[in-house]
C-alpha cells in the first residue's frame, strides 16, 4: 500500500506522519510537494498538521488553493483514502471536501495535551480496528480546532454517522457537540483535530493511535481482496 504525505510551505507534522506510517505499517510513503498535480499512484493521502502558510489569514485557506489539492479532490472522488490531521483537517474543510469550519478555540489559547476521544463510528476505513465506544488517548495541539457547522449540516453528519470521534468528557476547544473528527458521506475522507501519528508508542505517552493506521492498511487490503474476487 502506498502512502503520500503532502508538504505545504509551513507544514511541520509531515515528518511525524511519515514516521508513523513507516514504524506502524512498514509501508512505502512519499512526501509530496504542494505543486504536484498527480496523486494517482497513491492509495492513501495524508494531509498533515502544521502551519501551512503560517496559518495566516485563515488556517488552511491558502493551502486549499494549491495544485495538489485539486489532485486530492480527484483521488477522493475515486474513493481513495484521504486523511486530514489538524491543519490537514482545516485544509480539507477549506477545500470543501469536508463540511463545516474550524475557528479559534473558545479559550482563545493554543492547547497541547493528550486528550481522551470516544470512537463514535468504528465502521470507517480509519477506525475499523477500534470498537464503537472505545475511549482512546490521542494528543491535540491546536489553537483553532473549534468545529462549527450549521444545524442542517450537523443533523446530516449525525444521521449519516459521519461524526467519527468526539472528545470524551471534555471539550478542549468549544467544538459543537464535542466533535473531534468527521468523515465525508462516502466515508473515504476523514478530518480530525487530534494527532493519531503522535500516539504510536508508549514512549510518546500513548500507543492508541496505532490502530488508526492499521485500520487503513486493513481497509485497503480488504478492498484489494474484493477487487481480486470481482
Amino acid at each position, binding site marked *: 500500500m502506498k502512502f503520500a504525505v503532502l508538504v505545504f510551505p509551513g507544514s*511541520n507534522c509531515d515528518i511525524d506522519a511519515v514516521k508513523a506510517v513507516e514504524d506502524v505499517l512498514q509501508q512505502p510513503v512519499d512526501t509530496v510537494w504542494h505543486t504536484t498535480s498527480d496523486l494517482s499512484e497513491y492509495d492513501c493521502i495524508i494531509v498533515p498538521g502544521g502551519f501551512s502558510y503560517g496559518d495566516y489569514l485563515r488556517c488552511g485557506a491558502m493551502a486549499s488553493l494549491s495544485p495538489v489539492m485539486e489532485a486530492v479532490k480527484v483521488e477522493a472522488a475515486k474513493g481513495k483514502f484521504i486523511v486530514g490531521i489538524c491543519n490537514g483537517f482545516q485544509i480539507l474543510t477549506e477545500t470543501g471536501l469536508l463540511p463545516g469550519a474550524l475557528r479559534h478555540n473558545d479559550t482563545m*489559547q493554543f492547547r*497541547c495535551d493528550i486528550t481522551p476521544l470516544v470512537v463514535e463510528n468504528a465502521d470507517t476505513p480509519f477506525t475499523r480496528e477500534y470498537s464503537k465506544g472505545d475511549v482512546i488517548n490521542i494528543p491535540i*495541539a491546536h489553537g483553532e480546532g473549534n468545529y462549527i457547522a450549521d444545524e442542517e449540516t450537523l443533523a446530516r453528519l449525525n444521521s449519516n454517522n459521519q461524526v467519527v470521534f468526539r472528545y470524551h468528557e471534555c471539550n478542549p476547544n468549544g467544538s459543537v457537540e464535542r466533535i473531534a473528527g468527521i468523515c465525508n458521506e462516502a466515508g473515504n475522507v476523514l478530518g480530525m483535530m487530534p494527532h493519531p501519528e503522535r500516539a504510536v508508542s508508549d514512549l510518546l505517552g500513548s500507543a492508541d493511535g496505532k490502530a488508526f493506521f492499521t485500520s487503513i492498511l486493513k481497509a485497503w487490503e480488504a478492498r484489494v481482496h474484493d477487487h481480486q474476487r470481482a
Partner: protein
Amino acid sequence: MTTNVRNEPTPQQIADEKIYRTFGLTDEEYDKVVQLMGRKPNYVETGIYSVMWSEHCSYKSSRPILKKFPTQAPHVLQGPGENAGIIDIGDNLAVSFKIESHNHPSAIEPYQGAATGVGGIIRDVFTMGARPIALLNSLRFGEIDGADNAHNRYLFGNVVAGIAGYGNCIGIPTVGGEVVFDDRYKYNPLVNAMCVGLLTHDEIAKGTASGVGNPVLAVGARTGRDGIHGATFASTEDPHSKERSAVQVGDPFMEKLLLEACLELIATGAVVGIQDMGAAGLTSSSSEMAARAGSGLELDMLKVPRREEGMTPYELMLSESQERMLVVMEKGKEHIAEEIFRKWNLEATVIGKVTDDGKLRLTEGDEVVAEIEVTTLVDDAPVYHRPSARPAYLDETLSFDPASIALPENFTETLHTLLGTPTIASKEYVYSQYDYMVRTSTVVRPGSDAAVVAIRGTRKALAMSTDGNGRYVYLNPRRGGQHAIAEAARNVVCSGGKPLAVTDCLNYSSPEKPEIFYQFEESCAGMSEACTALATPVISGNVSLYNQTNDLDIYPTPIIGMVGLVEDLDHITTQEFKQAGNRILLVGPSDTAGLGGSEYLRVVHGQIAGDAPALDLNVEKALQTAVLTAIQEGRIRAAHDLAEGGLAVALSESCIGGKLGATIELNSTQRLDEVLFGEAGSRILVEVAPEQLSGVEALFAKAGVSSTVLGTVGGDRLEIRVNGEAVISDAVTHLESTWRGAIPCLMK
C-alpha cells in the same frame, strides 16, 4: 568619501555637536574611533562603530570575566565564539545549542519581543548546520496576584503566547523551561530562550567569510526600517523611555521556510560561511564573518533587498529586521542558492563579495559610502575592567537569625501556601500552550525535572534543562553561581542523562555599579568552579546587562541551559512515583537544609535573607555520579531533584504526578520548617522497588553518598511524621488542586 546628500550630519558636525553620544558612544570611545580611522567617521560609520562597540555586541564589560569560563573538553567540537556551541555525542552525531535573552524588547512588546527572541535563537542554531529539535525558555516576571499586578499578568500572558506563537508555528517543540515570579523583575522581565539542534559531524557550518571573490548573499526577509539600534537599546537602562520604533514583528512562517532552505543549502556543501543577521543586523553579521576569516567584505547597499523605498545605507546596515541571513557561497555556485531559495519562495540576492584587504567597504554602486578596518570593529572594541565592590546589603542578609522566625502552627497549611505560590505551582498553564510533542520525539514532556528528546534511529536521547535561582546569587554570588550549574546538572541526572555541557545567559543590572559588578564577577567564578567540578564546559552563552529601572535592580540571574546524554532510552526516568509499596530514599546529606534564601522564607515570612543554601561541589559530583549509575543499572523508578520548597514540596510533586500517596517517617534534630521546607543543594529523592533497596543502599554507600530511607509509596494521602509526630497529612488530590489551580486562577 562622498559628500552627504541625505541631510545626515557631516563628520565635523558629529564631532562638534557630539552626536555620537545619542548613539551610545562615550567621548573616549569616539576619540578612539577617530584615532583608529585616522579621520572622523561619517554618519554610517559612526552608526556601525556604535552598535559594534555596544555592550550587546562587544561584551566590553563582561569579556574579561567570560574568558575565565572553562570551555574545553574532548567532546567540545565548537566552544564560545560561534553562533552556537557544538558537542560530540558519539556515532558521528553532534548537538548544537545556545541560550539568548530578549528581555528589553519583551518589556515593551511582550508578544513580539518573546516571539522574535525565539526566532533569533533558532537561527543561531540552524546557522551551525543543525536541525533544531527542541526549545526551552526561562522566564522572570513580577508577582501576578492582586489588582495592582495587572501589568505583570499582561507581560506573563503575552510572553508565553509569543513563545508559543513562534515555536508552534515553526514546528519545533518547546519542551521545558522555568518561570519565577518576584517583584524584583516587575520592570525588567527576563525572557531567555534556548534552542537545541542535532547534526552530524560533517554538517557543521561556520560563520566565516573567506575566499577572495566569493559572493556574499542576503537571504530571507527583506530589510525594513524596524529595530534600528536595537543592540544599543539593549545595552542601556530603562527600555520604557526609549523610542518604540525598535519593535520588530516576527514572521515564524518566513523563518520556517528559511530554516528548511538554509539546511538544504548547507547540505550541498557549497556554503563557505553563514550567519544570521540578529542584533545589529547586517553590520555585525558582515564584520564578524570577515573578522573570523581575517578577510574583508565589499557590500553594495543598492543591492540589499528592502521593504521600503528610500532606505539609506545607515538604515540598511543597522536594521534588525528579522528572519534574514548572510551567506558566503563558493564563487560560481550562487545559482545553487538561488534555486533552493526559489523553491521555498524566498529571495537570495548577491549583495557583495569577499576581499583580502581587511576592510568592510560599503558602496552605493560605484560610490564608496563607508570604509572601516574590520579588526577595529571587533578586536579593538573597548574592554572595561569595571570596579567591583562587595555589596553592603550582604552584611544585613547574612546576619539573619532563624531563631527570629516563628514556626508555622499548621505545616499542612504552609505546604498549601507553598504549592499555591506561582513560582512553585504547576506551570501547565504555560506549557499547555506550547506544542511540546511535534516531531514525535519528546519522551519526557514538560512537568518533570529535565525534558528528554529521543534521537531517531538510535537508542540515545538528550536530556535538557534550564535553571537559575537569582535569589541565591543575590545572597551569595559565588555559591549562587555554583548552584545554578549544579541544579541544572542535577535535573539532567534525574531524567537519566549524563550532563555534558552548558550554555549560559547572564542577566544582571548595570555593570557600572561596583556592587553589581561584584555579583557578576563572583557568580561567574562560582559557575566556573561548578563547571570544572562537574566536567561540563561552557560552549555558548549570552549576556544581558542593564536590567534595572528606577533603581530597582533585578536579582543577579544567571540562567543555565544544560544538555546531557541519555545513553539508552531505558535509562529515562521521571519524577512521579510509580508504584505503591516502593521505598522512597533521600539521596544526599539529610541535615544541610536551612532557611536562608528559601522560597518558604520569602512567601511565608516575607524575608529575603540568610546565606544561599549549602552546597559542596565534591558531594554534588559524587551524588550525581552515584544516582546516574543507579539509574543506568535500572535500579531507580523515579528521581526528583529537591529545589524550591524543599523536601515537602518535592514529595508532593512526586505524589501528584503519580496519583499516589506516600507515608514518610523522619528523625531530625533540626527545626521542623528547615526539615520540611528548607533548601540545600545535592539532594535527590528516589523511588526504589523493595527488592532493589539493599543493592541501591550499597551502591550509594560505596560511592560515599549518604542516603536515608524516608518511607513508602502508597495510599492516596501524603503523610509526613517527624520524630514520631504527624506534621503533614492531606489527600494528594487536595494538594493537587492547590498546585494545579494556582496560576490558572490568577490568570482568569
